[in-house]
């Protein structure tokens, strides 16, 4: 290996150690600390002059802090005359763009459910500090207000947004941060990005520098063929339409059957329809004509308007969540495949639906296990029998927490280190997409 040095940010030093072991290199010496006032400081102990520098930092944990640390590390390398700076970001920062407050990127703080066993699918809007709160001199009151914001208060806010808060008719929106993140990395001095299973493939287009999006597919392929008994009889399931392509590709390669869970949010027409929020299409060929109303009490997707609304039923009238399973899973072993699990709403709900549809056993294959908020609790209580994720995010804490259920951690360091080796040598990376490591 020539003129190469690998540094680790504080997000996932164990992964860096593994990468370095694979490459036969010692990890670069770097001192990462914070001053008393909270400013991050970085000092490299090894020379980087005219070297090919790789900085490993994963985007889970204290995201903003880690991102600033990454930017400062890049900037320090650039100032220290590094030849080329490559950011190795297995889970990319802010890779999930939110379209609405119905966020896939975790639940707004303080909006976790209490009481209900499995969460419902109605999107939540965050509790914002109201004007009265802002004016309050003590910042504590704002915090406590946020902390106690429950489901019902969120509902109120949702109604307010439509009617009271916006008399001008301005439709509130959430700013997309993808371009910003890309520009910040480039402006700090990054020359190349290596990432893995990017949530939006379009994210690559936000950069003006090369982005290598590695795939975890070979890793999962290897796991399924070797560790799932009679895998040819199992069904690959995509828990939402967004991941269908990814899951279908895996099913095609392994010649396995494929099923899809489709979630729809439709404008609610009347209250009678609310009683049958969840419809299950048992057979794709029968289409919606034969759809059966699903009414098992306590079923995750199902939520009667009276119990959840707490007197704010107006907000409840807005949307119906319809979940459909397309495909047959009766007496089958299901392998749910997704790129990212954060709050775990999607996969836990998918698992319950599959079990209700007669699935025998449910595996969940997730590339990036962020598991924020009360995700671990949801996983513990869920119908998932086995969780398989990778060490793209440090999983030590999660494994320790998940006692009853089995959790398997696959190692992505070999894919990453091979990519690093190939990029350093100027070889093609594309064989990693098919064969993996």
């Amino acid at each position: 290996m020539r003129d190469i040095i690998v540094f680790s940010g504080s997000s996932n030093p164990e992964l860096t150690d593994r990468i370095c072991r694979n490459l036969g290199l010692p990890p670069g010496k770097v001192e990462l600390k914070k001053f008393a006032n909270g400013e991050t400081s970085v000092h490299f102990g090894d020379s980087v002059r005219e070297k090919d520098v790789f900085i490993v930092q994963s985007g889970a944990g204290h995201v903003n802090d880690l991102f600033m640390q990454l930017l400062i590390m890049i900037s320090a390398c650039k100032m220290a005359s590094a030849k080329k700076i490559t950011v190795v970001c297995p889970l990319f920062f802010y890779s999930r763009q939110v379209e609405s407050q119905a966020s896939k990127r975790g639940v707004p703080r303080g909006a976790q459910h209490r009481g209900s066993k499995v969460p419902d699918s109605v999107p939540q809007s965050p509790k914002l500090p109201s004007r009265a709160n802002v004016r309050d001199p003590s910042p504590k009151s704002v915090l406590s207000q946020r902390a106690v914001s429950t489901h019902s208060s969120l509902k109120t806010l949702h109604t307010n947004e439509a009617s009271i808060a916006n008399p001008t008719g301005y439709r509130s929106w959430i700013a997309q941060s993808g371009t910003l993140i890309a520009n910040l990395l480039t402006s700090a001095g990054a020359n190349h990005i290596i990432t893995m299973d990017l949530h939006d493939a379009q994210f690559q287009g936000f950069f003006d520098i090369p982005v290598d999006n590695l795939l975890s597919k070979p890793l999962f392929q290897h796991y399924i063929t070797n560790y799932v008994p009679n895998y040819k009889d199992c069904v690959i399931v995509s828990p939402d339409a967004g991941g269908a392509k990814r899951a279908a590709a895996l099913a095609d390669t392994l010649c396995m059957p494929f099923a899809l869970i489709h979630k729809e949010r439709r404008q609610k027409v009347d209250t009678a329809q609310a009683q049958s929020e969840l419809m299950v299409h048992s057979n794709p060929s029968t289409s919606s004509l034969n759809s059966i109303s699903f009414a098992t009490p306590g079923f995750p997707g199902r939520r009667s308007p009276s119990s959840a609304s707490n007197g704010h039923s107006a907000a409840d009238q807005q949307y119906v969540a319809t979940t459909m399973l397309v495909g047959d899973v009766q007496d089958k072993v299901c392998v749910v495949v997704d790129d990212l699990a954060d709050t775990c709403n999607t996969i836990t709900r998918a698992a319950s639906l599959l079990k209700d549809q007669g699935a025998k056993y449910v595996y969940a294959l997730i590339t990036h296990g962020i598991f924020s908020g009360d995700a671990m609790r949801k996983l513990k209580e869920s119908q998932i029998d086995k969780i398989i994720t990778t060490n793209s995010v440090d999983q030590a804490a999660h494994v320790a927490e998940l006692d009853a259920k089995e959790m398997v951690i696959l190692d992505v360091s070999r894919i990453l280190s091979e990519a690093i080796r190939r990029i350093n040598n100027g070889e093609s990376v594309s064989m990693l997409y098919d064969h993996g490591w």
Partner: protein
Amino acid sequence: MSLQKPPNSIKIIAGNSHPRLAEQIAGYLNLQIADIHVIDFTNRESAVLVKESIRDEDVYIIQTGCGGPEKLNDHLMELLFMIHACKAASARKITAVVPNFPYARQDRKDKSRVAISAKLVANLLVTAGCHHVITMDLHASQIQGFFNIPVDNLYAEPEVLKYVKLKLGNRDIIMVSPDAGGAKRVASLSDKLDTPFALIHKERAKANEVSRMVLVGDVEGKVCVLIDDMADTCGTLCKASDLLLERGARSVIAIVTHGIFSGQGLARINQGSLEKIVCTNSMPLSSMAEACGKLEIIDISPTLAEAIRRLHNGESVSYLFNNAV
């Protein structure tokens, strides 16, 4: 006939770092704070929720560098997200009002292979889409040169002068600079107040640690006013105060612009020999600071608000360098 842009108005956006200051500034300008908020998620990512149109408006984002190890970087990232959101929302001009500029002390390469983080932050702000920066008492005014956009570095000096004249005018005072770097700032003050001036020279072994101090000047029987741009861990101020009392000073008062008070800062002040410490409200105060009996606050929101008003109307800002509002 030339087409003139229609007149636009000021929009004040409050970040999560110091909503109270934003309220005060908006109050001074007789404006409502715009309905644009930063929300954070359980996975610790942030996003900006825009609930009000700011198309073609002059946007001023109030966010100061504060929060300690837990929140400082969050606040900086929030600022970048807000700037970017305003850009996406087609604001005409985006101004970041950052009274305490974060990473201002990492402004040079004091050893090899460290980052000039102040320069990085400047680049990040410009990359995000910022058109103008208003800050106050930059640790080193050279940081203005890190930007390729206009930076207005306001001074707390007029407000400090006003405070000294009103509250300490009848006492036999001497202005003291706790380090050589602040000598110019203190000399300017003592010239305007016509008071004597002393200087403490310190030798640093490590960052945030002071090893040895030497006093230059006579403070015998006088009330010493220590002037500095920030009070962080307060090690310097407390040691300086001890030294001054040792040399016969009657009492010691400290006036600083940015009261950061991180780590053991406040505990040191409480136990130390300082009679009182005066700081501006450029930083939000913790409940602990509010409870500190030795702390007094100078309100600088009028200065910031006036700067915003002048900037919007295209008037000169330099009046504020010499006059309190």
